[in-house]
């Protein structure tokens, strides 16, 4: 509760709303004690006095009555009526909801159909019909507004009661022989009261506005009694000649409703956990780049795509998560590089950083470069980056149900991949899309092109994702766990498809995975990542046969192999360290069986020897002895 209040207090607007609302309520409460003129005493000689005139701070109305006094009494009445309507609606709505939810079955059906009927009306029509039947008057207006709002409460409370009615403690009460009435009062009611109170606080502003509205129409409070609505309604006839009589009560309604809205927003925000985590911020078009030193814009490089000392961090509130710290990689045309590691090792973030696709906020690229044929893309302006995306460097993502647009046909998504880089006619685009679908071996491509993603199987969707990546004949494909969501046979098909494409088209592939089995099938070289850094790198065969880093060795031991007999599969105990609080020295140290005192002192460099490299003081094998 106190945490909730603290959150509310942090929201300055909500606090402002609370203060204003508190002032208005306090004023309304002490109105009878204030030395005010009688609000109903008329004095036709002093009609329409302007504000700040003698003895009448806010002036007088059409009958010479003191406006300040009428305003405060009217506010008191409006607040009271609004609150009463809210309580009335909440109590009756809750009663309907609890009975419907608790008894269920026919009772529930009957009551809720009735509630649905009430909701079929535009709300004011129902209120008008009720006032028409009962006759104009403040109490009748109050009843009308309350009745119109019953469905809202009934629905909410019913939903919660249905959940409670099947809980163990209710069953226990039933077995103990308690009557329905007692169970409802002692078991159900205490659990729904907080919900009722919250729902009431969010609707009270609305109730005040609605009763004021009916009074404004002349259907609520009748003269000489006046709430804010009828003050405004009566002043309307003199709007043009004496606007202050209208402006004053109207402004009061505005202040009340606005402060309640501010408060309500604050409460809602405080209750919404997503706002605390900052999850509701939207990623920008490209990842934010904030590098302390700016690398050269263009230098000659050996590989087609090369990363130099890449640093990507997530800045969440005051914490900094170093997802990628100093990764360097490179791939040549026709080569496939596997990047492997557990979840959270930074492999996906590395891949996404290349084209600025890390969600930002909270992601920030804080250093390094990603070069395509030597040209740095991280510092590239948005138009240049956009023209490279999909055209030279394409991505294949995992879980294509989430990564394909659910409302566009797959054909249109394919065509768009082409048309956003070069103009293409409709017929030509369609033909090209069919060709692409065929190239990833989708049967009936001609009819599949008009399917929506949800109409396809996981394997088919993954093929669509690959076809989309191939649309512009890119030079580099970055595949981020493209087979993780698939079953083994489909996985094998997809891998061989990628392998064929690489050989046919001379693609460079960066293949992100957590599965050494996949790496062994497809990749020429492999880089092993742990806690945002590369711990071992080298040609696939030598690394698989004789891993140098203990972590690599343990990862390989996790892969089951057919025909290997009853080898014990060894899980790696413990979890990777949190990247906002990395230990000194080797990040793997506390999970490593070979750990020694020296491992946790200083930063351990990536030692290179020929084609291999390892970041370990006590490697499993000495890579220096091998020649690549």
């Amino acid at each position, binding site marked *: 509760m106190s945490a909730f209040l603290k959150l509310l207090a942090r929201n300055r607007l909500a606090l402002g709303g609370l203060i204003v609302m508190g002032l208005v309520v306090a004023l309304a409460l002490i109105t009878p004690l204030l030395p005010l003129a009688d609000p109903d005493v008329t004095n036709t000689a002093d009609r329409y006095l302007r504000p700040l005139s003698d003895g009448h701070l806010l002036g007088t109305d059409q009958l010479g009555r003191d406006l300040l006094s009428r305003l405060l009494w009217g506010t008191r009445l409006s607040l009271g009526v609004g609150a009463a309507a809210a309580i009335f609606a909440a109590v009756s709505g809750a009663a309907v909801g609890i009975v419907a939810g608790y008894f269920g079955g026919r009772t529930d059906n009957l009551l809720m*159909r009735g509630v649905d009927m009430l909701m*079929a009306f535009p709300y004011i029509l129902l209120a008008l019909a009720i006032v*028409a039947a009962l006759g104009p008057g403040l109490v009748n207006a109050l009843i009308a507004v309350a009745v119109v709002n019953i469905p809202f409460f009934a629905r909410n409370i019913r939903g919660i009661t249905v959940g409670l009615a099947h809980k163990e403690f209710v069953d226990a009460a039933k077995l103990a022989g308690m009557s329905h009435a007692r169970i409802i009062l002692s078991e159900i009611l205490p659990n729904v009261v907080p919900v009722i109170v919250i729902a009431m606080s969010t609707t009270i502003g609305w109730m005040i506005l609605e009763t004021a509205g009916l009074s404004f*129409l002349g259907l609520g409070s009748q003269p000489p009694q006046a709430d804010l609505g009828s003050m405004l309604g009566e002043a309307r006839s003199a709007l043009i000649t004496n606007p202050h009589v209208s402006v004053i009560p109207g402004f009061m309604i505005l202040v009340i409703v606005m402060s309640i809205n501010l408060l309500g927003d604050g409460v809602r925000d405080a209750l919404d956990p997503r706002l605390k985590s900052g999850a509701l911020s939207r990623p920008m078009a490209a990842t934010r780049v904030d590098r302390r030193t700016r690398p050269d814009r263009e230098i000659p490089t050996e590989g087609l795509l090369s990363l130099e000392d890449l640093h990507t961090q997530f800045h969440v509130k005051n914490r900094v998560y170093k997802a990628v710290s100093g990764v360097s990689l490179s791939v040549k045309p026709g080569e496939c590089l596997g990047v492997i590691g557990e979840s959270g090792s930074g492999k996906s973030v590395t891949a996404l950083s290349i084209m600025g696709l890390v969600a930002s906020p909270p992601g920030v690229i804080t250093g390094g470069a990603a070069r395509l044929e030597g040209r740095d893309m991280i510092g590239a302006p948005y138009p240049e980056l956009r023209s490279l995306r999909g055209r030279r460097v394409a991505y294949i993502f995992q879980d294509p149900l989430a990564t394909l*647009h659910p409302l566009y046909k797959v054909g249109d998504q394919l065509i768009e991949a082409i048309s956003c880089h070069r103009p293409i006619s409709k017929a030509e685009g369609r033909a090209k899309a069919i060709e692409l679908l065929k190239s990833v071996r989708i049967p009936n491509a001609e009819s599949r092109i008009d399917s929506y993603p949800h109409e396809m199987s996981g394997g088919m969707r993954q093929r669509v994702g690959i076809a*989309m990546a191939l649309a512009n004949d890119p030079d580099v494909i970055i595949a981020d766990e493209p087979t993780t969501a698939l079953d083994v046979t489909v996985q094998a098909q997809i891998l061989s498809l990628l392998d064929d494409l690489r050989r046919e088209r001379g693609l460079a592939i960066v293949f992100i995975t957590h599965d050494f089995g996949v790496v062994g099938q497809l990749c020429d070289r492999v880089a092993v990542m742990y806690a945002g850094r590369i711990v071992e790198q080298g040609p696939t065969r030598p690394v698989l046969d004789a891993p140098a880093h203990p972590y690599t060795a343990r990862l390989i031991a996790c892969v089951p192999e057919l025909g290997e007999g009853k080898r014990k599969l060894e899980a790696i105990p413990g979890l990777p360290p949190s990247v906002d609080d990395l230990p000194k020295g080797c990040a793997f140290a506390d999970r490593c069986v070979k750990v020694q005192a020296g491992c946790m002192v200083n930063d351990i460099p990536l030692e290179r020897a020929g084609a291999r490299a390892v970041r370990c003081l006590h490697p499993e094998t000495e890579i220096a002895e091998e020649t690549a």
Partner: protein
Amino acid sequence: MGGYILKRLALAVPVILGITVIVFLIMAMIPGDPATAILGSYATPENVAKLNRDLGLDQPLVARYFIWLWNMLHGDFGQSFSLNRPVIDEVLERFNNTLILAGSSFVLCSVLGILAGVVSAARQYGFADKAITFAVLLGISIPSFFLGMMMILIFAVDLQWLPVSGMYAIYGGGDLPDLIHHLTMPALALAVVATGVIARLSRSAMLEVLRQDFIRTARAKGVHERRVICGHALRAAMVSIIPVLGIQAGFVLSGAVYIEIVFQWPGIGRMLVDAILQRDILLVQGGVVFVAACYVIFNIIVDVAQSLLDPRIKT
């Protein structure tokens, strides 16, 4: 799709019947008898009895309901005593005027609301976002009748840009430009609250969608950011915006009552308020049933639009 529409229409029948039952029951609660209300307190008992017979009020409640329903199905909503004209004629004429007002307001609030929401989401925490958020807060807090009065003061009295009230100029008006001239202020005043609500919802729907993986895919393809926002993201966000448009249409229709009073617009809301004050029950009854039934139909249109937009909804 045709089957789906038919199914929805069939499901609307019990809802509309339920509406007639509710309206009938509410009206049956009226204390005293309508004949006295119609004829006034000086009427002779014979005349009251005769009128009761003519109106079918001497019948039991259930019989009266079915007579009323039967007559309505034949287009006979009864006779308004205060206007001395068939209820249905008056209702149709007034409802037409309300549709002009509420319809243009609905278009305004949908377009402006979605636009504001999209801009706000795309520029999250930027200046535009803050300005829109503040305007929205003000917009949803100001009572429409008060706003209408302030607009009259500013645009009609002070600046004299627009007429104070009415639907057409009394002399020489009646054409479309005249209508638009008169329509502008009430339509805007009516649209403000709904615009605020729609803008708020569109903003959060857009933010929700922009975090989805398929948006990253679109960006990875190299789709231009403008198209990512206005195409991919908005299209997906519309799925949650459309139902709110349907709800807001109900609020616009409701709010029209106040605006019609403030701007002297000859719509059905003003007719209902007058009828209530005159205790012209048949007119109230007929007006409420007619508008509520139209609203049910409108909601079906919204649902159909929703299913057209989202292929995942089984039709």
